């Protein structure tokens, strides 16, 4: 992992450095290339008297991945003999801005287009503009198929050039 954007984001949060290794083994069940650190859902991770206290910020209110993530975090730390206490924090609300640059690159390599800015996001989701970059061929000649995709956080697009369908990660701010 190259340091830079992710390291910077972690530094600004209260995540104790000795916990990072274990935290980076836990991935999003829906987008397995993204770790919880890439996603930016871990807002705090501190160890106090042998117990690890984690503050987790859900991506979407009803996202079923959050329950799985909590279980996976507990499992990962129990393997190194640590107990975990997870608190869900709603405020401040999670934003796609919290996804690290490395995370966005991994997401694209995995076949999911990265979120555009808020304004452009609205335009593409209303079908007014074609700007989302196809993760397969790189063309921006892409069209909205459905505002909601396989999960709440994604919309479904198709590429008019390579004809492949793909997911677009919606901007959430």
């Amino acid at each position, binding site marked *: 992992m190259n340091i830079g954007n992710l390291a910077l984001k972690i530094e600004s949060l209260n995540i104790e450095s000795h916990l990072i290794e274990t935290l980076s083994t836990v991935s999003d069940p829906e987008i397995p290339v993204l770790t919880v650190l890439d996603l930016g859902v871990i807002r705090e991770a501190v160890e106090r008297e042998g117990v690890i206290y984690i503050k987790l910020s859900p991506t979407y209110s009803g*996202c079923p991945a959050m329950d799985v993530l909590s279980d996976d975090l507990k499992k990962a730390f129990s393997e190194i003999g640590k107990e975990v206490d997870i608190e869900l924090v709603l405020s401040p*609300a999670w934003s796609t801005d919290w996804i690290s640059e490395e995370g966005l690159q991994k997401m694209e390599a995995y076949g999911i287009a990265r979120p555009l800015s808020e304004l452009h996001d609205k335009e593409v*989701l*209303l079908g007014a503009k074609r700007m989302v970059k196809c993760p397969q061929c790189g063309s921006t000649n892409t069209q909205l198929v459905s*505002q909601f*995709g396989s999960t709440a956080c994604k919309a479904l697009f198709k590429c008019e050039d390579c004809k492949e369908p793909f997911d677009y990660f919606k901007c*959430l701010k």
Partner: protein
Amino acid sequence: MTNLYNYILTIADNALILAQRLGELCGHGPSLETDIALTNISLDLLGQTRSYYQYAAKIAGNNKTEDDIAFLRIEREYNNCLLVEQPNTHFGYSIGRQFLFDVYHYMLLDALQHSTDETLVAIAKKSIKEVSYHKRFSSDWVKRLGDGTQESNEKMQEAIDYLWRYTDELFYMTEAEKAMSEEGVGIDVSAFKEKYYQEVTELLQEATLTVPENNYFTKGGKEGVHTEHMGYLLADLQYMQRTYPNMNW
């Protein structure tokens, strides 16, 4: 129970009951994309419901849980408005109900972000991001159906004409709402009534639909007096917990 508890339920029950209605369409939507969209919206609303109920359960104490609140009340104890319990008669009704609720829901959450209650502010800030997507989806469909074929226009108009009578209740204030609004915790929903009808009217006109002119409105849901559809909905919703109390998935 406290006014705050009742106030939370007044907001949260709308989300639960609408989530249940939308959930009925899982696997039954008119197309794959709309099926996925409506159930995604359902999931967002269910997630919001959980945040509210967890907070309400904490206030209630006595080891009450979010599940008790969701599953173990009788019909008269649910405070959702009549609009959200209306059935999925056809796709036009599902979209019309969603649109009429989303415009209201967005305005409510927008105001709730300025509540003096920290937890409600946090839930509102989280939810409004999701609801802006819901509103965009339902508005888009109202326009597409209204300004579509003659048949889609007629069906969309039929749904709006039918559902219109339930819109006034959105702005009716219960005792809990009045009390909480005075304390700065709750929202005076009557304050944005005019803005609501203005926004709805503009979109209906854009969709080449006629804005209903009837002045007959009906209410009761927020006081626990529901339409005949509610009992059937609850029978579905509560079946497992009533049949196998305390069962776990």
